């Protein structure tokens, strides 16, 4: 077995050295009825690298790869071009095969990277501080709601209907068990957000208001008034960003007064990866930092006075606080955070702004073309790189017929909201820099055929 260096002679010598007659002696504490004498029956034996690669490659070929044709899916996961150097650098063994930086003297690479990542995220979101990352955007969103409960000591969260339905589901699931009250609902096919209504719904029991920006239908809006309403009532405003590239073009939630900003960082550096691993972004005003979940990296000095970095404020965390911890989270999404940080470094502010502008322009061009298809209308008044089309028929079957024609034409709202007939004709379409003019033309033509 190519990964196991012990030879039969080594094993014999080591068993003798520990005073065991056979390997079974070392498993003597396993009850007899649970001890297996041979390999577990019914499973294949070991395989060569070639054989495994062949098997996996065959499975890989059974999917329609996003890059193999016109592709317009978003709804929480976005396909952007990732420079080759990103994947090269994250595969350096010193990053890939390192552990959590608990021994800072020999983990300054990871720690300095995390400090840079935290600084990048804080600036992107327009907030004071960011942590070293969470599992993904959906879990970060729930953690933010719990954090708001801890800070305000109130238990009612108002969720905008524009919040990603899966994020809402995660929160619903968790709230069932924690006793938090959630006020939520499905969106309606209107050009504007529900934020003004949310402002009016805030009361003395409200811990937080959660809005997504851009939202699930691609709508963007100014959250300043909502932030003021939250502040006046002692509630927190939580903003969720699932497409961080947008913040190269539109105002950051922190700039508009959001108290906690969370997001999905996948769009920058990570890739689609069929849903994971992704990287949850988590940032807030500095006065709330001790209520934050997750790891934090901070600057300090070593015994010789040299600058260095350590994990800090660890007393919030499970390994010290146990049942009183701010969260049970025990990891971050380190390698994905690294990919995010490297891609963001390659872009820089100038590159990010330009990338965002290209996305927006390409999306506007697509929206214009697609809205020309008979019976199709554009819902949004304003959007970044994702918008909602309203079709003359249910969007779900249309998606499958488009797929037969080689077009991955967005996410039907019917899939996201299966129980809501009022949304069945909605189609969420994302357009990034990876989409070409030919792709847009092919999509428009295919949609016209399918709807005819």
């Amino acid at each position: 077995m190519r990964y196991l260096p012990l030879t039969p002679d080594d094993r014999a010598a080591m068993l003798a050295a520990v005073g065991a007659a056979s390997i079974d002696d070392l498993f003597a504490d396993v009850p007899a009825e649970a001890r297996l004498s041979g390999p577990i029956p019914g499973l294949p034996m070991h395989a060569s690298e070639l054989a495994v690669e062949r098997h996996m490659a065959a499975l890989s070929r059974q999917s329609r790869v996003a890059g193999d044709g016109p592709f317009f899916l978003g709804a929480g996961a976005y396909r952007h071009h990732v420079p080759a150097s990103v994947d090269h650098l994250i595969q350096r063994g010193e990053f890939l095969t390192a552990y959590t930086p608990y021994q800072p003297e020999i983990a300054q690479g990871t720690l300095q990277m995390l400090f840079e990542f935290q600084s990048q995220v804080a600036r992107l979101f327009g907030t004071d501080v960011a942590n070293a990352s969470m599992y993904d955007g959906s879990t970060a969103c729930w953690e933010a709601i719990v954090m708001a409960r801890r800070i305000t000591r109130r238990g009612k969260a108002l969720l905008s209907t524009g919040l990603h339905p899966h994020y809402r589901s995660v929160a619903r699931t968790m709230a069932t068990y924690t006793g938090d009250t959630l006020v939520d609902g499905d969106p309606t096919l209107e050009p504007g957000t529900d934020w003004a209504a949310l402002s009016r719904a805030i009361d003395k029991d409200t811990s937080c208001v959660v809005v997504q920006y851009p939202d699930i239908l691609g709508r963007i809006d100014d959250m300043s008034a909502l932030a003021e309403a939250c502040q006046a009532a002692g509630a927190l405003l939580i903003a969720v960003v699932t497409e961080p590239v947008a913040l190269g073009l539109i105002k950051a939630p922190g700039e508009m007064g959001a108290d906690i900003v969370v997001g999905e960082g996948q769009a920058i550096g990570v890739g689609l990866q069929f849903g994971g691993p992704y990287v949850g972004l988590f940032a807030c005003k500095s006065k709330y930092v001790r209520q934050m979940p997750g790891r934090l990296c901070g600057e300090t000095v070593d015994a010789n006075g040299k600058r260095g970095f350590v994990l800090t404020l660890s007393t919030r965390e499970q390994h010290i606080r146990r049942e009183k911890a701010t969260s049970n989270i025990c990891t971050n999404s380190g390698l994905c955070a690294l990919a995010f940080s490297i891609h963001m470094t390659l872009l820089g502010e100038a590159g990010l702004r330009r990338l965002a502008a290209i996305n927006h322009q390409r999306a506007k061009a697509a929206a214009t073309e697609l809205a020309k298809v008979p019976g199709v209308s554009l819902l949004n008044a304003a959007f970044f790189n994702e918008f909602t089309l309203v079709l003359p028929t249910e969007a779900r079957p249309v998606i499958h017929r488009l797929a037969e024609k080689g077009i991955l034409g967005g996410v039907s709202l019917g899939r996201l909201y299966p129980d809501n007939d009022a949304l069945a004709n909605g189609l969420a379409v994302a357009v990034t820099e990876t989409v070409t003019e030919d792709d847009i033309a092919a999509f428009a033509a295919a949609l016209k055929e399918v709807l005819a």
Partner: protein
Amino acid sequence: MTALNPAGWRPEMNAGGADDSTTFTGNRALMLEEPLLFEIGSTETTGVDFDEDVAAADLGPLARSAPIGLPGLSESETVRHYTRLSRQNYAIDLGLFPLGSCTMKHNPRLNEKVARMPGFADVHPLQPQETVQGAYAVIHELAEWLVTLTGMHAVAMSPKAGAHGELCGVLCIKAALAARGEDRRVLLVPESAHGTNPATAAFAGFTVEDIPANAEGRVDLAALEERLGPDVAGVMITNPNTCGLFERDLKAISDAVHAAGGYIYCDGANFNAIVGRVRPGDLGVDAMHINLHKTFSTPHGGGGPGSGPVVLSAALAPFAPLPFVTKDGDRFRLIEEENAGEAHPDSFGRMTAFHGQMGMFTRALAYILSHGADGLKQVSEDAVINANYVLRSLEDVLEAPFAASGPCMHEALFSDKGLAEGFSTLDIAKGLIDEGYHPMTVYFPLVVHGAMLIEPTETESKAVLDQFIGALRSIALRAKNGDPALKSAPHFAPRARLDETLAARKPVLRWEG
């Protein structure tokens, strides 16, 4: 055993005195200092070329007009910045990484190659189901392996990490109790448990009560049975436990807990010790998370991403979260909110936006297929041989509190008893850094004073272990003899001991340029 100077090195042995030499750059040959990105980058610089120019957007007051402050670097500078940073990290690729309970084993590169195959890496989680059959096939095939290897009934694949898996298992227990119309509030957790166990239980709204250990370092069965009752939802138990011992009475514990109406959650962090040789399902476990990044060698990546599928008994399987993959004939189908009503009506809900850590599933499946049933059995056997070899080779110089409790499993536990006045486990850890090793897990489990938990894993050779044992013997003797040079170790790392008190008292959590 490799011959080593038993007294170890001394700082004065370094010709040239590494600690007081200075250079113009601050570099020392291959040890290169690297400034912060924010000190070398510029907001005008970009390392990405674009094919087109675009007109200004017309977003009115929503336009981001104020500076963001994100520095950029050219590609050449970027590669150098991160390559230099990487060299300040210790990693498995460099040497033994014996962190107890973390299972730092070799990460095969085949798995990296497989994970990047476009049919797994470049597919969207919400693509039409007929376009992602290959990706579903991977999830399904790995799920079958995990169920078979553990002797369980079903598996929830979506949890994003071990602690998230714990939460999944605990929520299944809560849902099962609710379905029975019972409101049991107490979860029993041994004192030696990982901190995530009580944190998870509390996060899910349970009250946590400790169960004591016996003198052997195992759960006290009598005390546990005494505590069982109508308010107890279940037990969270780690097996093998964090003292490195197999919980001999686990079947008896399961039977007692089941008889009292509770469930058994098993923390599977230490599954590497028994994979392919013992099935937790045979011991009465109801739920167990599997850290794919431990037992199945997906890379730790400097602290994640992990992946924590949860295997479930028949009693808990109906409550598993959405979404998951099933097979109908030769087609795979995703069960999500839309069709759960008929197929899986009792699910407790959704834990994450999409299907879980696909990039880890591909790696873990490649690892499992490479080993096969025979290779996985060899994995646990070699992991256990290596740990016992370390335990028996060091128990004369370091106190091993449970050395008499029988063989250890995959990790060896020592305490700080017998060190010279003023010397601690921390000093031994920092001494190991200078010897070129990552230290073991220190100060965990909490039940042992100054604990040192060593998990060599099966991917280390006898020669590597012999040298490590020699180095650790040397350091242990220095700590027992009160060698002052050990108190200021490490001397040869990129940084000396860092001031964690300063970092916590005056937190600086971002660049303030």
